[in-house]
C-alpha cells in the first residue's frame, strides 16, 4: 500500500513471537544461533542433542565441577602420604592440614582469624564499592564533573594500589583503619571504572525518550540510567570483591596480629606448612563464598532489570 515504504514489514502474529521470545530468554543466545526459526517453546525437545549441555541440573553441574578438585586432592595424597615424594615441611599431606584446621578451630583461633578477615573485607569492600558507585555515577552522568575530575582519578588509578601502603601506615597507623582503607582502595577502582564507562554508554535514544517524557536528574537516573547499567556494574562489583580479598592478604601480610594473612606469615615463620596450606584453602573458600553471594544478588537483579 505504500509506494515509498522501504522497511520490511514485521510479522505481528500474536502467538509465535512471544513464545520465541520466552524460549530465547530461557536458552540464552544458543537457541537463536543454532535455530533461528524455532517458533515453539519446546525447542529443547526438537534438539535433543543440545539438551544435555544446556539443561545440566545443578547437582550434575556440581559433580562435573568437582572432578578436577577431587583428582587434585587424590594426587596430593598420593605424592605425600603414599609415595612420600615430598617431606611434610615441603608439602604436608591432606590429613595434616585437616587436623591443623581442627586444632585451630578447637582453640577458637580459627574463627577469630576468619571473622576478622571477613570483617575487614566486607567493610573495605562496602566503603570502596560505595565510593566507586557514587563517584562513577557522578562522573558518568555529569560532563562537567567528568572534565573536572576524570584526569585526577585516572592519575590515581595509574598508581599501583600497593604503593599506598607506606603512606597509609604513616598517616593512618598500623591499626584496623589502614587495612580497611587499603582494601577499600583495591575495591574502588574496578567498581568506579565499570559504573563510569557503563553510564557513558547508556543508549542515548533511551535517555532521550526518558527526558522527552519529563524525567530528569535523579528520576532519570533511577528510571533509565541505573537500570541500564546493572549488568556491567555487577561485573565491576565482582571484580572489586576479588580485589578486596587480594588487598586483604596484602594488608595482613604486611602488618597484622590476626587474620588469615597473618596466619600465613606466622605459619611460614614457625615452619607450619600445614597451617599455611589451611590458610590458603580458607581464603579460597571465603573468596568463592562471598563471590557466590554476590552472584545470587546479581542474578536477582538481572531478572529484574535485564
Amino acid at each position, binding site marked *: 500500500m*505504500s509506494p*515509498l*515504504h522501504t522497511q520490511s514489514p514485521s510479522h*505481528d502474529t500474536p502467538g509465535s*513471537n512471544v513464545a520465541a521470545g520466552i524460549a530465547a530468554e530461557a536458552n540464552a543466545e544458543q537457541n537463536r544461533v543454532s535455530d533461528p526459526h524455532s517458533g515453539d517453546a519446546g525447542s529443547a525437545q526438537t534438539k535433543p542433542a543440545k539438551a544435555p549441555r544446556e539443561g545440566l541440573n545443578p547437582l550434575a553441574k556440581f559433580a562435573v565441577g568437582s572432578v578436577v578438585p577431587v583428582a587434585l586432592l587424590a594426587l596430593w595424597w598420593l605424592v605425600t602420604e603414599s609415595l612420600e615424594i615430598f617431606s611434610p615441611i615441603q608439602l604436608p599431606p591432606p590429613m595434616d592440614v585437616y587436623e591443623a584446621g581442627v586444632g585451630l578451630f578447637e582453640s577458637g583461633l580459627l574463627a577469630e582469624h576468619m571473622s576478622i578477615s571477613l570483617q575487614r573485607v566486607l567493610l573495605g569492600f562496602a566503603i570502596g564499592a560505595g565510593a566507586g558507585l557514587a563517584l562513577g555515577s557522578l562522573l558518568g552522568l555529569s560532563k562537567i564533573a567528568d572534565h573536572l575530575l576524570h584526569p585526577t582519578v585516572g592519575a590515581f588509578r595509574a598508581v599501583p594500589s600497593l604503593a599506598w601502603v607506606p603512606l597509609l601506615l604513616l598517616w593512618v597507623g598500623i591499626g584496623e583503619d589502614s587495612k580497611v582503607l587499603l582494601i577499600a582502595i583495591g575495591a574502588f577502582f574496578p567498581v568506579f571504572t565499570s559504573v563510569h564507562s557503563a553510564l557513558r554508554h547508556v543508549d542515548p535514544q*533511551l535517555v532521550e525518550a526518558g527526558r*522527552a517524557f519529563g524525567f530528569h536528574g535523579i528520576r532519570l537516573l533511577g528510571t533509565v540510567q541505573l*537500570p541500564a547499567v546493572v549488568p556491567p556494574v555487577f561485573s565491576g562489583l565482582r571484580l572489586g570483591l576479588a580485589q578486596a580479598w587480594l588487598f586483604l592478604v596484602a594488608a595482613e601480610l604486611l602488618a597484622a596480629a590476626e587474620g588469615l594473612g597473618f596466619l600465613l606469615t606466622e605459619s611460614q615463620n614457625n615452619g607450619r606448612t600445614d597451617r599455611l596450606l589451611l590458610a590458603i584453602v580458607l581464603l579460597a573458600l571465603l573468596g568463592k563464598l562471598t563471590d557466590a553471594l554476590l552472584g545470587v544478588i546479581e542474578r536477582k537483579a538481572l531478572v529484574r532489570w535485564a
Partner: protein
Amino acid sequence: MGSSAPTLDRDAAVFAEHSAPVAPSPLPAPTASPPSLTVDLVHVGRTFGERTVLRDVTLQIRPGEVIAVLGSSGCGKSTLLRQVGGLDTGHEGEILIGGEPVRRYDERTAVGFQEPRLLPWRSIRKNVALGLPRSLSKLEGRERVDELLQLVGLSDRAHLRPREISGGMAQRASLARALARRPGVLLLDEPFGALDALTRLKMQDLLLDVHAQTGTTVLLVTHDVDEALQLADRILLLGPAEPAQEPGGAPEGATISRLLTVPGRRPRARSSAEVTALREDLLSGLGVEAHSR
C-alpha cells in the same frame, strides 16, 4: 508504483483479523484532557555545523489539525519534529506552541519516536506508564494505562517485556506511551513504519479514533503518501527549496516545497478521483514518476 492494500475492503479485512483494538470504553471524558494547541512555525531552520538541513519553514497549524509531513529519506522530517517537541535546541526562527515559545522537552507535546524506544527491563504496562503526567494519582494513572493498553490491543501482553513482543506491538506500546500524556500536540515520527500492512491500516484507524475523541493536534511524519492522504487535513511536503534548479545553485536544506489540503472528511475512501490526483501530485513532488495506466 501500484498500491495493493487500498483495494482491500479495509473494514472487513482488518477487523476480522484478530480482536479489534477499538476501545469498548471510549477514552475518558474530554474535560480531563488539555485543549489541543496551535503550532506556529516562523522561518524555522536548523543547521548542524556546516550543513543546513532545514530552512525557512513557516506554517501555522490550527488546534486539532492533523498535518502529515512527507519527504524523502534524510530530508529532515525527524529534525523538524524534534524542533517542535523541544528535543533539540538550536533552531533558527520561532516555534510557538499554544502561542508560547517551545520549551526544552516540552511537556505540552508527546513524541512517538521512529523507533519504539521502550525500556527493555520494564513490562509493557510500565513502559506505557512512563508517559503519564506526574500530576496524576496512582489510581488514575493505572486506569489510564489500562484504557490505553486496551486501545492499542495490548491488554493481554501488558506483563511482557519489550523483547518478548513483536516489532509491531512495540510500536503500538510506544504510541500508547505518547498518548498517556494527553498531549496538546502529538508528534509522531513514522509511528507505523515498522508495521505490516494490515496492522498499519488498523493503527491508522486507531489514530483517527484517538483524534476524534481527544481532538489533539497531530504532526505526523510518514514515508507513505497513502497514509498521509488517509489521515491528514493538510500535507506538508519537505524538499529542496526551489525544485527545478541546477544542483550546484540550489540552496542547501529542505523547506516546504508543497502544502496541500486534502479534500473530504475522514475516514476517507481511498480511491476517490480527487485523492488519486493528489497522490500523483505528491509522488511527482517526491521525484517518483506516476505511471498512468
